[in-house]
């Protein structure tokens, strides 16, 4: 049996979680997931501004902080912290933790090869609407292929303490140590699917240990000290989801089921570069306090194509807000919304979309929100998006004047003019496997 923990569900997750996993009890591997689809484009911009950046900057200091414990306890780390600059990330880790051996997985990033790929006839059409990539060619910010667990296994085989990858799948981070330790083969579809499902359960950190859990949330203990998830994996593909003793949160069939359903598409076909996992084959059973056993997983052969994650510039946006108090807060906020829209129109500003929400009334659930009579206050949040930056810029100056020149009891504008943000859109596409060759580089 090996223990694989996940200490980071996204870049920005709790900084103490990985440290507590290392210090709070036995684990063998620590997986850290830093990359969301949008993160790659942010990192690409940072790298363009400074060639030494482009990776998850929280990661090297974390490794520096825990380097000694990793060595003492024999814990190995697998992270997709490399972003679009895994080598720079590894060099920074080496600088802060010189005693550790670092392996880097390269080859997922094809930003510099886009034109070569297009010339070879790999069109990378948008999976949602079929549009060809050439349509947005000039606006592309980043381009990566999702790679699976096997390149990470190759990195583990070097004996590295730290494996740094770029855009590998989230599930691969947990699956790789199982393949490495149990000797699973590339066509052990049931085993690979089991490890993939284990990875899916833990990839969002505490979201399977009681975090963001609707089931009996008021009774979930000690959120402040919530335990992040640990997989106890067996060579036969069965595993237990648990957490360190004495930590907060909860592991139950309810908390695990919620995470299993998270961001799920067709449950019979959860597609990764390693296999296709069937979520309708999963069997759950209780295995003591804060322990859920998972078994019965079926898998099918991996897909022929790899998924690409491409991001591109898509204009600008801004969102500003203003609060109106009782009485008639809703009517006041709607009046303010009309005033702002009329002024935007008078100015002749160009937007692709203007969207208004009334927070405190129905912003989250829209038509499904319960009816509220005359709430004590509501927040008007008005947002615009468009290709013309100066229009968006001007919009940000049209909210504050309402405080003195619109309906009464306006407040909550203390944070000033809202910032203009660049919109980065995501372009899902497919690539033949032959397009991507990964390799491992070791930093002794």
């Amino acid at each position: 049996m090996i223990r694989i923990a996940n200490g980071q569900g996204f870049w920005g997750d709790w900084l103490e979680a990985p440290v507590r996993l290392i210090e709070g009890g036995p684990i063998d591997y620590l997986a850290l997931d830093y990359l969301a689809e949008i993160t790659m484009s942010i990192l690409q911009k940072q790298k363009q501004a400074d060639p030494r950046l482009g990776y998850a900057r929280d990661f090297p200091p974390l490794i520096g902080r825990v380097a000694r414990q990793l060595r003492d306890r024999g814990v190995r780390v697998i992270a997709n912290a490399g972003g679009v600059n895994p080598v720079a990330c590894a060099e920074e880790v080496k600088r802060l933790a010189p005693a550790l051996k670092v392996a880097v997985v390269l080859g997922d990033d094809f930003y510099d090869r886009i034109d070569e790929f297009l010339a070879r006839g790999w069109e990378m059409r948008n999976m949602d609407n079929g549009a060809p990539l050439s349509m947005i060619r000039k606006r592309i910010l980043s381009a990566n292929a999702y790679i699976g667990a096997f390149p990470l296994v190759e990195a583990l085989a070097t004996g590295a303490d730290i494996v740094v990858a770029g855009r590998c799948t989230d599930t691969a981070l947990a699956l790789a140590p199982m393949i490495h330790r149990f000797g699973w083969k590339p066509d052990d579809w049931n085993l690979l699917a089991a490890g993939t499902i284990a990875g899916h359960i833990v990839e969002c950190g505490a979201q399977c240990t009681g975090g963001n859990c609707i089931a009996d949330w008021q009774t979930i203990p000690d959120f402040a000290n919530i335990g992040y998830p640990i997989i106890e994996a067996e060579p036969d593909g069965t595993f237990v989801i648990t957490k360190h003793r004495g930590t907060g949160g909860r592991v139950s069939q309810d908390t695990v089921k919620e995470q299993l359903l998270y961001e799920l598409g067709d449950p019979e076909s959860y597609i990764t570069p390693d296999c296709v996992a069937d979520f309708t084959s999963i069997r759950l059973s209780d295995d003591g306090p804060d322990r859920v056993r998972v078994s019965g997983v079926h898998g099918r052969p991996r897909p022929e194509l790899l998924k690409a994650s491409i991001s591109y510039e898509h204009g600008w946006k801004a969102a500003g807000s203003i609060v109106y108090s009782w009485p008639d807060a809703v009517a006041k906020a709607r009046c303010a919304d009309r005033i702002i829209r009329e002024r935007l129109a008078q100015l002749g500003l160009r937007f692709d979309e203007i969207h208004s929400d009334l927070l405190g009334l129905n912003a989250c659930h829209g038509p499904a929100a319960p009816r509220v009579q005359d709430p004590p206050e509501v927040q008007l949040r008005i947002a615009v998006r468009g290709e013309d930056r100066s229009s968006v810029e001007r919009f940000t100056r049209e909210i504050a004047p309402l405080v003195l020149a619109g309906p009464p009891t306006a407040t909550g504008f203390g944070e000033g003019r809202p910032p203009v943000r660049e919109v980065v859109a995501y372009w899902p596409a497919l690539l033949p496997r032959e397009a991507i060759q990964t390799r491992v580089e070791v930093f002794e």
Partner: protein
Amino acid sequence: MKIPLSRIAHARSGDKGDTANVGVIAYDQRHYPILVREVTPERVKRHLGDYVKGKVVRYELPNLGALNFLLYEALGGGGTISLRIDAQGKTYGAALLGMEIDVDERDLAG
């Protein structure tokens, strides 16, 4: 009698582009057939009104006592493009749990 879906089920929701997913899970596995009977794609679409511009597709996971719904064109463009406060559909599970379903005592006894 009419009860809110939240009486017998919990949920989690997320996003994939402009598609939201909502997993609805029976607290008691014996209530799964009620979910299958009552929480149809048509009723889900009606409950969420114009928040869902596209189709609603339902998948069944009897092994988990759960249904998975894909709500197409449901996030105002999705991801970074959407101007909505809940651009990732994080709260859609809770929204769906507010839906009323029809059950009788026999149903609830399982």
